[in-house]
């Protein structure tokens, strides 16, 4: 089943992005960078799923009048529309938490935050 690299370019790109996002998330102590990493990871998954729907030479499934084989599968696009909104919501909530953390602890660095939390009054 192993196919050509070129034929899987989108999927490989998505997996690469996923790894990049994961790295950004794990390697940085900065909370904002963690959120950015999370978004890159989500975007990678979106790229992957949307790519599943594509068909070579296909057009978007709007005003479909010919045979279905000419059109891109609309289902992955519809799913990812939902996925994007979910990612936006998570990001918004995470940013709100960072704003509040900054207000409370005066830092947006994960390690520094834990240190100040331990030393400061609870």
């Amino acid at each position, binding site marked *: 089943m192993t196919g050509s690299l070129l034929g899987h370019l989108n999927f490989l790109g998505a997996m690469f992005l996923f790894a990049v996002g994961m790295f950004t998330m794990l390697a940085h102590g900065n909370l904002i960078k963690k959120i950015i990493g999370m978004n890159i990871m989500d975007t990678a998954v979106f790229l992957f799923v949307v790519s599943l729907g594509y068909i070579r030479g296909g057009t978007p499934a709007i005003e479909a009048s010919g045979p279905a084989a000419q059109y891109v599968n609309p289902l992955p696009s519809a799913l990812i*529309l939902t996925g994007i909104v979910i990612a936006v919501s998570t990001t918004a909530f995470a940013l709100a938490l960072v*704003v509040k953390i*900054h*207000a*409370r602890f*005066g830092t947006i660095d994960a390690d520094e935050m834990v240190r100040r939390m331990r030393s400061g009054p609870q």
Partner: protein
Amino acid sequence: MPDLILSTIASYLVPLIWVYGAYVIVHGHLSPGGGFAGGTIIASGFVLAALTWGFDRIRAGFDENVLGTADTAGVLAYVSIGLAALIRGGWFLSNLGAGYPPGIPGRLFSSGAVWLLGAAIGVKVTTTLYGLFARLAESQPAREGQPRGEPR
């Protein structure tokens, strides 16, 4: 005191963005777009207006109450459309099967509940996204607790 260039351009652009967003919302069943895309566009119009003239000016027209009410109304409308279908047709959120009028395909007012649901989501997304932006932008990180480390 809003910047002259910004405020002049924004005063032309903001209504245009709103109209375009409304267009995208109500034509969701005919062309690319829909409630989410259109709602985001309208919200971005609000964001531009808020950045230009300040949040207080926006609040004069759309205060917390109006936004909160529109938010709840949008998503409750979605649920009510679904519940009405459950009562009439037996399945939650069913469309033509529950007697929503299909209209003439391709016209603006067609496709029954799809159109209504899109509009409801459009209202909800507009208010929520702008509300989130306003809350994040207006919060004052240095107001409480320890002094902050770096400048904002």
